[in-house]
């Protein structure tokens, strides 16, 4: 039994930690296409996808480059919208 002791402690610890780190269910797809919004709250026709492709909301928030600038920023979409659009998208980066 003694030779199993450390291993069993590790298994119990892992299960305990797992039960404490279960997050609330998020949507399966947590990566978005982000677009810059203009002054009128519209994503204009021909606007390019920011960051070169799909990224997470936290990545977009950290890299949106909106600090101290305007009241408009990025909107994220799970699937690419047809542009122009005034839709608010699935997520938005924080306004700074």
């Amino acid at each position, binding site marked *: 039994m003694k*030779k*199993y002791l*450390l*291993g*069993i*402690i*590790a*298994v119990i*610890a*892992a*299960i305990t*930690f*797992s039960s404490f*780190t*279960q*997050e609330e269910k*998020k949507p*399966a*797809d*947590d*990566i978005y296409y982000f677009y810059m919004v203009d002054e009128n709250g519209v994503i204009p026709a021909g606007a390019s996808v920011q*960051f*070169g*492709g*799909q*990224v*997470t909301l936290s*990545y977009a928030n950290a890299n949106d480059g909106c600090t101290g600038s305007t009241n408009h920023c990025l909107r994220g979409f799970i699937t690419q919208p047809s542009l122009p659009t005034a839709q608010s998208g699935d997520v938005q980066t924080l306004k700074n």
Partner: protein
Amino acid sequence: MKKNSGRILYVEFAIAIFIFLFVYTGINKLFAVEEFRAVLSKSPLLSFAASYIAWILPVIELFVSLLLLLPHTKAYGLLLSTLLMTFFTAYIGYMLLFTPKLPCSCGGILKELNWSQHLLLNSALLLLSISAWLLSKKDKRFIAINRNSRIPV
């Protein structure tokens, strides 16, 4: 004698760490298997088999934990841990170089690490698994010699 017990302790400690790591990440991946599959499907390397890998990988992790837990299969467990850590580290290296904007498809709180931190952690774990595996082979020799010396008088 003291040196050998230190070696055994190091191997046992490494085994406990890998059991913890694989059970923890395996359970977390299984609990969030859909999210895990969605992230894998964005990976340029693994998207072709995302649905299969999302299930197989956590099962392999739990299987390796079982091998590490049983005394007779510890050496195989350490070898498979080393192979898994090599694969994970190589994958992280690739992601860091080519697609750093994608999130990590790791289990539990490891998801909160960025790619560079993850590469560092994985490199350390890879070194730990290699050293533990090599030392466990030496332990086997030590135990065999010891057993031979225990002849009833």
